[in-house]
């Protein structure tokens, strides 16, 4: 199983109750971050932009992590889970990112088995293609897209039930890092 750096969290919080507002509205957000602490921080970051509340006059009500459910493992008591990590899905991610010249919206598509994997792909792709670091990216929306509605050619080219392509170069690698040596007796054969 692939271990994902980005975890999905559901964070619930609200402003502290005061005399003017006995029952402040409760807000729930779905976030991606590497750990819980960062998730809580991100939650307040977004909530500050939507409502006049800060961490100092607000309270966190719940934070739950989304997990991958494997059929052979016990179900961990969390609210959001990846129902089918063995099924390949097309994920569409809408994001807002800050470039050197301003904010832009973007829609990207990724093929992956899990949503966390797709989000991680998105972050690494934004970093490589646009030099955008992870803290400059805000995920607006994510969705699984059925194959017919995919917009990008790079995902649509894999929607082929009879897909067939050769691997052009063979990767010559020792089977474990322990067997790695600087010098080899002979040149590698790269033909598959």
């Amino acid at each position, binding site marked *: 199983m692939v271990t994902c750096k980005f975890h999905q969290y559901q964070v619930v919080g609200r402003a502290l109750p005061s005399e003017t507002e006995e029952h402040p509205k409760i807000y729930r957000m779905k976030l991606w971050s590497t750990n819980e602490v960062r998730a809580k921080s991100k939650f307040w970051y977004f909530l500050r932009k939507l409502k006049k509340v800060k961490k100092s006059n607000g309270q966190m009500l719940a934070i739950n992590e989304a997990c991958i459910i494997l059929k052979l493992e016990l179900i961990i008591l969390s609210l959001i889970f990846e129902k089918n990590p063995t099924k390949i899905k097309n994920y569409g991610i809408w994001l807002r990112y800050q470039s050197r010249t301003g904010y832009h919206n973007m829609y990207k598509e990724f093929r992956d088995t899990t949503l966390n994997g797709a989000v991680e792909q998105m972050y690494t792709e934004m970093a490589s293609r646009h030099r955008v670091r992870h803290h400059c990216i805000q995920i607006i929306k994510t969705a699984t897209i059925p194959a017919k509605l995919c917009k990008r050619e790079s995902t649509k080219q*894999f929607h082929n*039930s009879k897909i067939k392509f050769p691997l052009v170069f063979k990767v010559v690698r020792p089977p474990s890092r322990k067997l790695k040596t600087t010098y080899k007796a002979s040149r590698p054969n790269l033909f598959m």
Partner: protein
Amino acid sequence: MPFKRYVEIGRVALVNYGKDYGRLVVIVDVIDQNRALVDAPDMVRCQMNFKRLSLTDITIDIKRVPTKKTLIAAMEVADVKNKWENSSWGRKLIVQKRRASLNDFDRFKLMLAKIKRGGLVRQELAKLKKQNSS
């Protein structure tokens, strides 16, 4: 030189790196340019990078993402196990495994057998040399 081994649904591959090193798996679907969904009768279906797979000549006849039962049945029909163990690649791997699992006594026996074989070869060679020179 055209390519003979393609990444396709049903291609049998050998894992050549990582936790599942040495296992024969079947490519069950292609995620994207670098990864495939891979399955074997005795493991949970997972995704693998193509860099970890060495494609073999064996393919089985399955549709995209079959159920475990269909996969096992198709592997029986295509007789993957026998084909692999009779192929030169498969046989080499079996020999390698056997050699790695020898204990000291086996290595001793092997040494004696090699010496014996070398002696017989040299006898025959001497005979042929004698014939040639006479």
